[in-house]
């Protein structure tokens, strides 16, 4: 069980036919129950983070379960048109940010290295 859902932030994408994370999960592991999304069969979660990137409210994040760590770090993501921003919240509360190109903006090509 490696994805956690912040119940406060989750709106269940109310009004939509299905929640974004429910739509995208490759394992069909996320289901809307009432107005919130729940993880089922979470043991099979592959940490692909598709749901994390899809959530419009950043209600989902990856966690490292106790056999591997369990110190409470969280990995959030936010996808914009051309980049994916990752926010790594460390157990100490400090945050690291990574912004990674994810799609070519036709007007602004990827810079040369």
């Amino acid at each position, binding site marked *: *069980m490696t994805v956690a859902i912040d119940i406060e932030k989750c709106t269940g994408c109310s009004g939509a036919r299905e929640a974004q994370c429910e739509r995208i999960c490759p394992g069909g592991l996320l289901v809307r129950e009432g107005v919130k999304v729940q993880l089922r069969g979470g*043991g099979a979660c592959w940490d692909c983070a598709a749901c994390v990137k899809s959530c419009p409210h950043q209600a989902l994040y*990856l966690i490292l*379960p106790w056999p591997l*760590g369990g*110190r409470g770090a969280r990995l959030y993501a936010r*996808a914009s048109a051309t980049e994916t921003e990752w926010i*790594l919240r460390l157990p100490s509360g400090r945050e690291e940010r990574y912004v*990674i190109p994810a799609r070519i903006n036709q007007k602004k090509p990827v810079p*040369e290295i």
Partner: protein
Amino acid sequence: MTGWQTEFKETDIAIVGGGVAGLAAAITAREAAPSSRILVVEQAHPERSGCLAAGVNAINAYLHPGETAHTFLDFVLREFMGIVRRDLVMTMAAGFNKAVDRLAAWGVPFPRDREGRYLRRGRHAVVVHGERIKPLMFQAACRAGVEFLNRTLAVEFIVNEGGRVEGLYALGIKNSTFYIILARAVICTTGGVAGLYSPSCPYSGLIRGIGWYPLFNAGSGLAMGLRAGAEMTSLEARFIALRVKDTLAPTGTVAQGIRVPQVNVHGENYLEGRHLTTVERLQSTLAEEGAGRGPCYLDTTRLTPAEARQLEEAYLEMCPRMVLWWGDHEESPRDKPLEVCPSEPYLVGGHSLSGYWIDSRRHTTLPGLYAAGDASGGAPKKYVSGCMVEGEIAALSALEDITQHDLHLTCPGETAVQEAKGRALAPLKRTNGLVAGELEARLHKILDEYAGGAVQGYRLMAGRLLIARRELKKLRRECYRLTAGDSYDLMQAHRVVDRIMVASAMVEHLLYRKETRWPPYQERADYPVRDDSRWMVFINSRYNRDNDSFIMLERPLEEEGGL
């Protein structure tokens, strides 16, 4: 079965599986024949399904200046000890670079040098910011006019009286719909098989999902093919990946991406100066462990801060859990070397040799059925670009097939449909019996202990394999006791049945090859030597449904496709 409706669909080409191979096939078909109807049947959603759900940070099959399809073939022949289908590798390699150009055209960012060339990451690889490769391919497919049937699990091919595959039965998991999909040709791109063995780094059984290859790839397409009588090849050529311990993150990101030394516990670079193949690097690592010089590591401690950051970013594009692991330990890649370990064995045609036996047009031995990508065998080292090319070739062959032959599809009769529906939904009707997880646990136990799992050091021997054969035969009968409470359970039930079918065939292959060809992918403790005088052949199999047995065949290396 209450509430399960039946729906009928008809299309020109049905593509089973919306991963990289499937989407490439679909786009190619629509571009080549804009009036054709192309339907992708996908168990999840193609935007993030398949083994590239998280993304990818390198395209590992590309011909840089100076390389040709021939030099790539030489490389693959060496990597797989000569057991390779030359026709498949040559036709695939010829399309690598165009496939990469197509990805770039669809908006996938590739960093380039001053001359505009893709950045090299090893002899055959280019760097890519591929976190969004699947969404971008999906968008390209939508623009091309491909139709989709999502959250739909394929369960059985429809085979007409003449033996031609004319579509498939599938289960709509979200809408409780039994689909009869008639198609003039079918392309199977369901990927490889994970979840046959238990994870090589088990964690009290709580977290099954940590593997390198996704558990959602249960070998459905291969099992469907076996049940319909298709010929499979090289299921004994399992694939075991060298990965970062506990996270099962790819090691290529570090070894090729950043070029750090791979060392034993004494800090000695045990690979230095040795020109080893992928499987030999894995074997060398196990040998270090065996000689008491483990654990082995990728030494990331000498990276500069900028390189460490670059490494974290590369992992976010492919395996974000690795960055989370460093974060949870409040460590940088520079603080500690990364311990490596072998994964559990998988069957993956894109890395190793196992899958459908196909001809150079990617046609299987069943008329009307094509296969591509991780589901097809004989051409290893496909990776992303090779899977795309195979999908493209399969699509063009299927189009040619259906335009040349005047095919009249006949819907299966009412009785046949009701029987198929009954079989597919049977677990929902049973009240007493087994759940999928129970059968899966037994499958793991049999394969781990008797068919060369990690606990056996991956080593195989006839005595144990014969026990595996016997136990799997029993397990195939237990499948008739599976129960399911809802449609998710039903999907899991189908997946375990499919895994058991593929595992049964794999064990026959493991028994048949009486030599050691690719240790530790395939290492016979009772036949420890490689024997080129006897075993320079493909080992193929066909399932005989009538008496629940397997027919083993040998195919020479030279014969193209053996068809």
